[in-house]
Structures are given as C-alpha cells and as structure tokens.
C-alpha cells in the first residue's frame, strides 16, 4: 500500500491553529483529539480517548462517557457522508463549554471508515440571494392565501341553516377538483371562498383570476397566457382560472373561454363567480329545461351565462346566501370581526351594545359582508370606550328604519278613488292658475258647475 507524506508537519499546523478537531475510529471510539479540543472542553483529553462516541448508544453515568457521547455525529452520517451539528457538551465540574458548530466528514469505506469532526464557524450553509428571494415570495404568497382563508372562515361562520348548507357544499367542492360556479351578491366574499376552495382541492396548480366583465376574446387570451402556456407544453399540467362577474362577461369572451376549456379538456378548471341569480342566455328550450331548472331564464337580458359555459359549470354550483338571509348569524359575525380587528391592534372596543346589535339585525346589508366589515372598522375607529354603541355606527346603518324602504310601495297601494280625487284637484288648481283665480271661469273651462268646483277645493267639514 502506498504511504502518504509525514503527518508531523500537519499535526504541528493543526495544533497551532487552535481549532477543535477530533477523529472517531471505525468502531465509534474517539481516537484523536486536537489541542483545540482541550481549550474548548476544558478537560484532560487523554481521559476521553477510546471512549464510545456513537449517537444513541447506551451511556454510563460516568461524566467523561457522557462527554464523549455528546461529541458523536448525528445518525445517518454513514449514508450522507457529511453532516453538521451544533454541539453543547455537558458541564463537568465548574467548566461550561461553549456551544459550537461541528462539521462531520466520513472518510473511507465500510468497516474502515473514520469520521473527522472539525469545530468552527461555517458560512457555506448561507443560502444564496435567489433562494432567499424565493422563500420571501413564497411567504408573501402564503400570507395572501391566508388572508383569503381567514376571510372565508369568517364569512362561513354561524349556525343559520343557510350557512350550514354553504359549509357542507364547500366541503364537497374542496374535496374534488371540478369546475365550480359560486353565486353570491357583491361583497359576499365569494372570491375568497373560491380561492380557499382552490387551495384545498389543488393547491399546487397555477392560478389566475380574471375580471369577466372587462374581457373580450383577445384580451382573455392575453390574460390567461401565463397559465395556458404550461398546459400546451406538457399534457400533465393543470391550471385553474377564477372568473369574476362571469354573468357579466360578454358572450364572445364566454365562447372563447369555452373553446379554451374544450382545447384542454378538464385540465383547465374554471371557477366562476356570478350574482345571486344568474341568467342562462338564450339556448334551446330543451337546454333551458334540462340544464338550469332552478335558474331564472331571461332571453332578453344581455347579461348571463351562455348555455355552453353553464354546461361546464353546472356540475357544482354553490350559492352564498346574502347576509339579509342570515340574520341570526349577524351578532356572531359582528363579534368575530371585532375580535379579529382587536387582535390586529385596531382600537380598544371589546363588545357591541344591545342597540348596536339590534341595528345590525334590522339593516338590510346591500353591500353584504364587506359592508359589515367596513361598518365595524368605522365603529372601532370612532369608539372611545370598550363598548361600541349605536352612535358609533355609520350614519346609513344607525338611521335606517325598517319601514322607510316600503313607503313608496305603500303609496302604490292607494285606492282608485283617492288617486282620482288627487288628479281632479290638480286639474282644478291648474285651471285656477290659468284664470288668475277666477273660479267661475275655471269651472267653465273644466266643464263643471261652480258649486262642484267649490266643493272640491273647500270640502265640507265631516261634522
């Protein structure tokens, strides 16, 4: 066997360097410790020689056995060939050794392999800038996803039948990767729900959200390009697109979306968001009856979902009920939003007064969940005490009266006699104005007697 150069110069330099270095023999015993180890451990190194240095092996209560065992490399070194470990040697007497990072390297094969351990500081594990950026972007993405997930959790909180139904349907939607249509009013958080469903069912798929109402076919191609590209490159690729305002999407753009979907089969998943009662645009009667029995059919309306697109989405349709249908959930939702805001450090308010909660229940919430969230933020900002009173709520909410919306409707229920007498009176007034208050002339122009005119403008007292 060939021999190497003399070890004496190497050992001299090693001792001079002061670096802790030790060698573990093929049997797992300490066979060499440099002078640097003496400085580090503060013990007589000869007492450590030939002691077992294997991770996980039984250790006696003898302090030096325990110290030698603490210097052992992590398990799996024989497979990996190298490993790093921060070592905290046990205290012996008054000496408390520092924690240092030790790099282990395995040299040789099988039963002749030895392990060389060097203590020190190593910079090669610092990740490069590109990797650091990737991690930072990933964390931003996670934050963005979490924001939507949190929002979804809040929106779907409650015990009303509507929300229980919604949660059950979302569980189904999250458990399978299928095209999906979410119907809900503006501000109901259906986009956040859609993103959460996507995350739950196919988190690693490329995802692209588009505004349906703003699309035309060319623009749709341009916008979807980043997720379409991988689909054409590889037959295994999958992608999801979320289309906001699907029922407001121009028919040509809907046709293009259907074409793209057909090109890639089920590999491009469409999640559509639309209003509470989307119309299916004119198809055949057969299509209307078979595909959308529960939807309002409106041939005249320019807005709606084409039959072809509806055929894709009809597999799973989830309706997000408006807040006005979930009145019993309102106190719980309001409390949950307030808790979340307080946890984020916004304001000091802790609860709502009875009057404020009553106002929440009475108000019809045309802006749905988003309006509730904004109203509570407003209340938190204006509140100076721990309880949010009705006076802290936005004007629209605190001044809302349940009857005010139906006043116009009540007027429409007026009787025919009342309407005719009003009309008659108005005609008489116009005639009087035209004749400068001459009652006889006005009566003549209207073709009625003067006495009748007088009865109309000055009706006799009831008593």
């Amino acid at each position: 066997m060939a021999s190497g150069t003399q070890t004496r110069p190497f050992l001299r330099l090693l001792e001079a360097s002061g670096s802790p270095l030790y060698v573990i023999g093929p049997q797992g015993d300490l066979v060499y410790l440099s002078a640097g180890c003496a400085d580090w451990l503060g013990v007589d190194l000869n007492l450590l020689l030939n002691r077992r240095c294997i991770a996980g092996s039984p250790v006696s209560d003898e302090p030096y056995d325990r110290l030698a065992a603490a210097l052992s490399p992590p398990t799996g070194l024989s497979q990996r060939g190298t490993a790093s470990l921060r070592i905290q040697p046990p205290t012996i007497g008054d000496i408390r050794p520092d924690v240092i990072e030790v790099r282990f390297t395995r040299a040789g094969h099988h039963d002749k392999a030895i392990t060389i351990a060097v203590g020190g500081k190593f910079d090669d594990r610092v990740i490069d800038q590109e990797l650091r950026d990737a991690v930072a972007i990933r964390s931003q993405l996670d934050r963005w996803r979490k924001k939507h997930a949190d929002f979804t959790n809040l929106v779907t909180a409650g015990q009303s039948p509507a929300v229980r139904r919604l949660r059950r349907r979302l569980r189904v939607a999250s458990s399978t990767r299928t095209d999906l249509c979410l119907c809900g009013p503006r501000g109901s958080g259906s986009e956040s729900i859609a993103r959460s469903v996507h995350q739950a069912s196919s988190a690693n798929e490329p995802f692209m959200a588009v505004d349906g109402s703003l699309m035309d076919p060319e623009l749709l191609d341009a916008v979807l390009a980043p997720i379409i590209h991988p689909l054409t490159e590889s037959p295994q690729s999958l992608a999801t697109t979320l289309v906001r305002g699907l029922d407001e999407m121009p028919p040509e753009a809907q046709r293009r979306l259907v074409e793209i979907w057909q090109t890639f089969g089920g590999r491009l998943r469409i999640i559509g968001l639309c209003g509470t009662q989307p119309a299916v645009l004119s198809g055949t009667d057969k299509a209307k009856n078979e595909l959308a029995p529960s939807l309002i059919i409106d041939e005249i309306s320019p807005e709606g979902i084409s039959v072809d697109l509806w055929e894709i989405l009809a597999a799973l349709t989830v309706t997000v009920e408006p807040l006005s249908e979930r009145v019993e959930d309102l106190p719980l939702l309001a409390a949950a939003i307030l808790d979340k805001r307080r946890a984020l450090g916004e304001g000091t308010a802790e609860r709502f007064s009875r009057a404020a909660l009553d106002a929440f229940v009475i108000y019809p919430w045309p802006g749905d969940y988003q309006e509730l969230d904004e109203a509570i933020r407003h209340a938190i900002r204006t509140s100076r005490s721990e309880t949010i009173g009705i006076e802290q709520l936005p004007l629209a909410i605190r001044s809302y009266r349940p009857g005010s919306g139906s006043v116009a409707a009540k007027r429409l229920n007026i009787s025919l006699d009342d309407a005719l007498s009003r009309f008659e009176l108005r005609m008489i007034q116009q005639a009087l104005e035209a004749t400068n208050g001459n009652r006889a002339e006005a009566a003549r122009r209207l073709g009625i007697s003067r006495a009748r005119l007088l009865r109309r403008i000055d009706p006799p007292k009831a008593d």
Partner: protein
Amino acid sequence: MTPHPLVLDVVESDTSSIVDLLIPGLPAVVLWEVEPGSLREAAHQFIKTNDRFPLALQLVADRGLSVRERMLLAEFPVAVLLKQPEQLPKIRPLIEGHFASAAQPVD
C-alpha cells in the same frame, strides 16, 4: 366612459411613492415593471396596494421573468402580465372597463 376628468393622468413614479399618488375609493391603474431581481419586493407591493387601494387595477410589465415566475405572479392580485409595450392597445378595453365599472355606485 372614464369619469371626470375625461383625460387620465399618467404619472411615472418609483415604488415607494406609489401610495402617495393613489386615492382610496378612486379607480386607478398601476403598471409595475418587474424583473427577476425585484420579484420579492413586487409581490409585497401587489398585496399592499390591493389592501389599501382595492380599486387600483394592477398590471405588470414583465422584464425577463421566467415562466415559473410569471405563473407565481398570476396568483397575486395582478390583472395582466405584459411582455411587450405593443400589447398595451390590447388592454385598452380592460382599462376603460375598469374605470367604467368602478364609477358605478355599489348596489
């Protein structure tokens, strides 16, 4: 269909002063220039801008992003990724539509 004033202001800005130019509740379009080195900062800005100014339509001018990076950006609140300035006329309907829809009262 753009609200008054009918001519839109086009303002060049650096990333840090974007928030001073946007007005909450008013529609706006922000065109970000994103290159591979600025992806991390851009992602942060997309979320921040969307949080504070939900009516700001965010577009990205892609300066040499890889396909993987473009796909990553697609999940953030970005409406369109543009590769060439020549694509700008194509997104005109999007911008007009954005101002038109943002001008509608919330029902």
